[in-house]
Each structure stands twice: as structure tokens, then as C-alpha cells.
């Protein structure tokens, strides 16, 4: 306890968040090994990790940088397809699934980060609604591009086309790797709940430590007052890009996890379109903009709830709606915030009387 006290409040708050994640993992893992939960729920564990990573990474843009981005699913899509492509090509070359996944992860993250940077440079000049619309369009464009992408490989090497499989002009020995709307099939299923949780912890580590560093302060200063930040010599473009790129990279990691959890990867509106981007934004908003722990909790509750309520068929959506409203109130109503800070102020700054 003495040690906990000596640490800075931020560090303590972060450790509590890690603790919650690890405890939740251990509980679920125990339930899974003792066979106490349905296989359906068990199958939801990796998607849950994906949503949590996405929510935390989007919160970096929306809550910490203060810019509205609706293209997050696009970065996830980039990470998913590049990593799945890699894993499929390397399936027989690298037999250790852990090593293969690790390399796929690095590739997915790197490519998503590059996309974040390239998209961010022109787009971050825009503000508010304009930025939201352009990022939304980016997400849709990525999804549609993937749907017309055909890649095959034969003895002569790789073949690309944006028309169809025939257009690849492969030798008879060739195999189709990416098949347009049918996407990538036969990606090794390397994602596990444990890997997912580790990725959540790494995401948390990166985001929370960034927030409490020199760069994080600069990012939040831009959010709070751009003109003042400029007047004290903060490079606004650089820090906006930094937040956006890191966020894109983390969304890419979620995409890698997603791609390696399914044997067939396709890009549809539900997984990589605006539906997904909006779903993630809902997690961020309901969990409290800028509140990292809140994003995690919102993502978990809203992903699990529909499954847990399946038995109540008719009342399911009603209860879901009520929970949404309660979460909204809990996070946003001034009275509720006061109450929460009084009883749940784990390591948060206490408000003192202002003299």
C-alpha cells in the first residue's frame, strides 16, 4: 500500500486499469477451461479484444487529440489484409504460428501506420465535421479497393489485377491469394484470447504512457487550445500526425487480430465499413471521451450484452437500449459524474475547494 501511495496518481490509475484487464482475463479463462460458458460466448473473446483495442486507439484521436475520425475501420482493414496476405504466403515457409503471427503483426501495424501518416498529412488540415466526412470516405474507399483487388502467385511470381481472376494470366500451377470480393481464404487461425489480451495490455501501455509524457501533453494542449499551443512553440502538425499515426497503427493491430481469427477474410460494410467505425465511436463516446478505462468497459459491456441477453429474445434490444442510456447518464450527467468521482475516484484527481 505504501508503494502505491508513493507512485504518481497517473501511474496508479494505469496499474489499476492493467489489473482490471488481467483479472477479467483470468476469470474468463477459468470459466472457459471449466466449461462454464457457452461456446458462442467463448468465440466472442477474440472479437472482444479487437473491439477494446479499437476503442482505446480511437480514443487517442477523439479524446486526446480532440479530432473526430470516422475512418478507423479503414486502418483496421489495411492491417487485416496485409497481415493475412503475409500469413497466407508464409503459411508453409514459417511453421511456428507464434513467429508467423508476430511478423504478420509487425507488418500489419507498419502498413496501417504508413496509411495513417499518408492520410493524415492532407486530412488533418481539416477540422471538425470536414475531417469526419473525409475520414469516413477514406474508410469506404479502402473497403471498396480491397473488394476489387486480385492477387495470384505462380512459378513466375506475383500477379495483380483489379478485374477478375482470369485477368491475372497465371500459369496452371498458380494459386489465387486475394480473390476480390471473396477476399482471402485459408489464413492460419493464429489469434488466441491470450494474444488478444496481451495486445490490449500493450495498447494500454503505449496510449497511457504517451498521454503522460511530453508528447502527450503537447497533443492535449493542441486539443484544449491550438492558438495557445502554437504561441508557446508546439508544432501542431507534427503532434496531430503523431497521435493519428499511432492510433492508425493500433487499429492495424486490431485488424491483424481480426484477420487471424477467421479462415475467410472479406471486406464488408459490417466489418470494415462505416458501421464498424461508428460502433467504435459509440464505445468511445459512451465510455467517456478521453477516458481510456471507460472505452474498455463500454466495449466489453456492449459486445457481451447482446449475447448474454440472447435468452430473453424479445426484451433483448429493450434492455440493450436501457443499458446504453444508463451508460450515457453515468458518464455525462453532471450529478452522476460528481457521484462517481466521490465513490470511484481510483487515483483520479480529487477536486479541492478553490481558494
Amino acid at each position, binding site marked *: 500500500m505504501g508503494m502505491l501511495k508513493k507512485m504518481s496518481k497517473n501511474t496508479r490509475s494505469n496499474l489499476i486499469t492493467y489489473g482490471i484487464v488481467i483479472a477479467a482475463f483470468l476469470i474468463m479463462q477459468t470459466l472457459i477451461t471449466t466449461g462454464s460458458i457457452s461456446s458462442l460466448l467463448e468465440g466472442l473473446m477474440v472479437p472482444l479484444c479487437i473491439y477494446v483495442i479499437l476503442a482505446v486507439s480511437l480514443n487517442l484521436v477523439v479524446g486526446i487529440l480532440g479530432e473526430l475520425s470516422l475512418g478507423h475501420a479503414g486502418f483496421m482493414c489495411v492491417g487485416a489484409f496485409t497481415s493475412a496476405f503475409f500469413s497466407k504466403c508464409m503459411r508453409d515457409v514459417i511453421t511456428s504460428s507464434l513467429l508467423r503471427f508476430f511478423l504478420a503483426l509487425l507488418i500489419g501495424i507498419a502498413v496501417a501506420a504508413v496509411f495513417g501518416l499518408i492520410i493524415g498529412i492532407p486530412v488533418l488540415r481539416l477540422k471538425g465535421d470536414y475531417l469526419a466526412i473525409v475520414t469516413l470516405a477514406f474508410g469506404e474507399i479502402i473497403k471498396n479497393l480491397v473488394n476489387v483487388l486480385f492477387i495470384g502467385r505462380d512459378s513466375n511470381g506475383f500477379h495483380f489485377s483489379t478485374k477478375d481472376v482470369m485477368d491475372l494470366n497465371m500459369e496452371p500451377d498458380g494459386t489465387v491469394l486475394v480473390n476480390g470480393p471473396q477476399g482471402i481464404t485459408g489464413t492460419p487461425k493464429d489469434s488466441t484470447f491470450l494474444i488478444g489480451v496481451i495486445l490490449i495490455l500493450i495498447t494500454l*501501455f*503505449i496510449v497511457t*504512457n*504517451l498521454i503522460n*509524457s*511530453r*508528447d*502527450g*501533453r*503537447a497533443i*492535449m*494542449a493542441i*486539443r*484544449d*487550445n491550438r*492558438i*495557445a*499551443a*502554437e*504561441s*508557446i*512553440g*508546439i*508544432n*501542431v502538425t507534427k503532434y496531430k500526425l*503523431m497521435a493519428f499515426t499511432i492510433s492508425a497503427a493500433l487499429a492495424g493491430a486490431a485488424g491483424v487480430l481480426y484477420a487471424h481469427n477467421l479462415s475467410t477474410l472479406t471486406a464488408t460494410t459490417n466489418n470494415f465499413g462505416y458501421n464498424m467505425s461508428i460502433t467504435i465511436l459509440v464505445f468511445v463516446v459512451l465510455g467517456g471521451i*478521453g477516458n481510456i478505462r471507460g472505452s474498455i468497459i463500454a466495449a466489453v459491456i456492449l459486445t457481451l450484452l447482446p449475447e448474454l441477453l440472447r435468452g430473453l429474445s424479445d426484451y433483448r434490444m429493450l434492455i440493450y437500449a436501457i443499458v446504453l442510456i444508463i451508460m450515457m447518464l453515468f458518464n455525462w450527467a453532471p450529478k452522476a459524474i460528481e457521484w462517481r468521482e466521490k465513490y470511484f475516484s481510483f487515483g483520479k*484527481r480529487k*477536486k*479541492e475547494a*478553490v*481558494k
Partner: protein
Amino acid sequence: MAALLDVKNLGISFGGLRAVNAFNISVEKEELYGLIGPNGAGKTTVFNLLTGVYKPDSGKVLLDGEDITGKKTIDISKAGIARTFQNIRLFKQLSVLDNVKVGLHNKHHYSTIEGILRLPRYRSVEKEMDEKAMDLLKVFELEQVAQQLASNLPYGQQRKLEIARALATEPKLLLLDEPAAGMNPNETGELMDMIRFVREQFHMTVLLIEHDMKLVSGICEKLTVLNFGEVLSQGDTGTVLNDPQVITAYLGE
């Protein structure tokens, strides 16, 4: 000796309005200099021109001999001008301490990776920044509220915090835009002492805009009076305040 700030023939128009015209000023090192004039005279616009918020359409600005005319705000900050704002612009959701630490940003470095991995340099530089920031907060008697959110401070303390943040950039020239606005006479008195202390302690040069004549006559050695974007009168405080033109146009009554 050349002046620290030397401005010649500065001007800008907004549409048809000539907001600032043929503006000259010369501020010596460690001087406390006042810029006064009626509402809408163009005082804040002069600050915006000096700090690169607006680009002048005529004139030249020299800081310590360096031509900074038309440069970007960030480069002017690095060249050594820091300012406060008439409408307070704090980082509201950051703590008082962090507001000052953002001001220290360009003087204390560690890389993003060192920050995320919390390597030794992160710890040592952060500690250095904490100490420096606390020292500055002490000057403005804000050390007790260091952990509070900036938006929770009363008005007078917010104005002081803005000055502390500006000083954190270690400027050569400090621009204060109505630092006493919204303060009661007691707070204004304290503020005057603080400005004097800052000048002495940090060998700071200060150019300030103010309507509170008690503060202006109390601490400024020289004055420039602006009226309709043009210099109406300029010189030692005593002389300017007795200039009949100034009395009619501004001091009035």
C-alpha cells in the same frame, strides 16, 4: 545598443479596415513598456502581428537584431517572444502544473520512445521539468493549486498561470495582453509586484497592453498610445500621460 524589439512601419488591413498602420516601436532590454489606447485601437492586432498570428502587409519586425517579419508563430516562439491572451487561453483540461510543463516543451527533450518506455531519461527530464514548473508557479503563488485543473482556477489565478506558462518558454520578450483585466485592486497590486519581480529575476523585457491606468502609470517606464491603428503619442510614461492629444483621445473626461 540596439533595441531588443525594433518595429518599423508595421501595418495590416482587414478588408477595408486599416487595423494597424505605420506602427513603430522600439523596446530596450529589460524595459517595462506599455501599449495603451481606446477599445478597437489595434493593440491586440499589434500583438498578433508580432507573434505571427497575422502576417503584416507592410513593415519590419526585428527581435534582438533577427528579422522575424512574417514568420510562423512557432518560429517566433523559438526566436524568443512569448505572450498571454486578452481572452484567457489556458489548456483547460490539463492541470496547472501541466500547463506550465507544456510551456517547457521546447527547452527539455526526450524522445517519444523514451517517453512511452519510461526510460531513465524520461524520469530525469520529467523531474527537471516538474522542478522548473514548480519554481515558476511559486513566483505567481500558484504552487498550492498545481494539481488542479486549470479551468477550476478563479479568473485572477488563470491570468497569472498564463504568464507563468509564457515564461516557461524562456522568452527574450514577454507580451501581456490586459493582464489585470477582471482582477480586483488587491490582485492588481499583487500582479504589479509580480511583473516587477519577473523583470528583475529573469532580466525580462515586457511589453504590456492595459486599460488599468494605475497599473500602467505604476510600472511602465515608457508608453505608446495607439488610436485608430496609428501611434498617437510615444515616450516616457510621465510625458505621454500629460500629452494633451492623449488626454483628449483616450484619458478623456
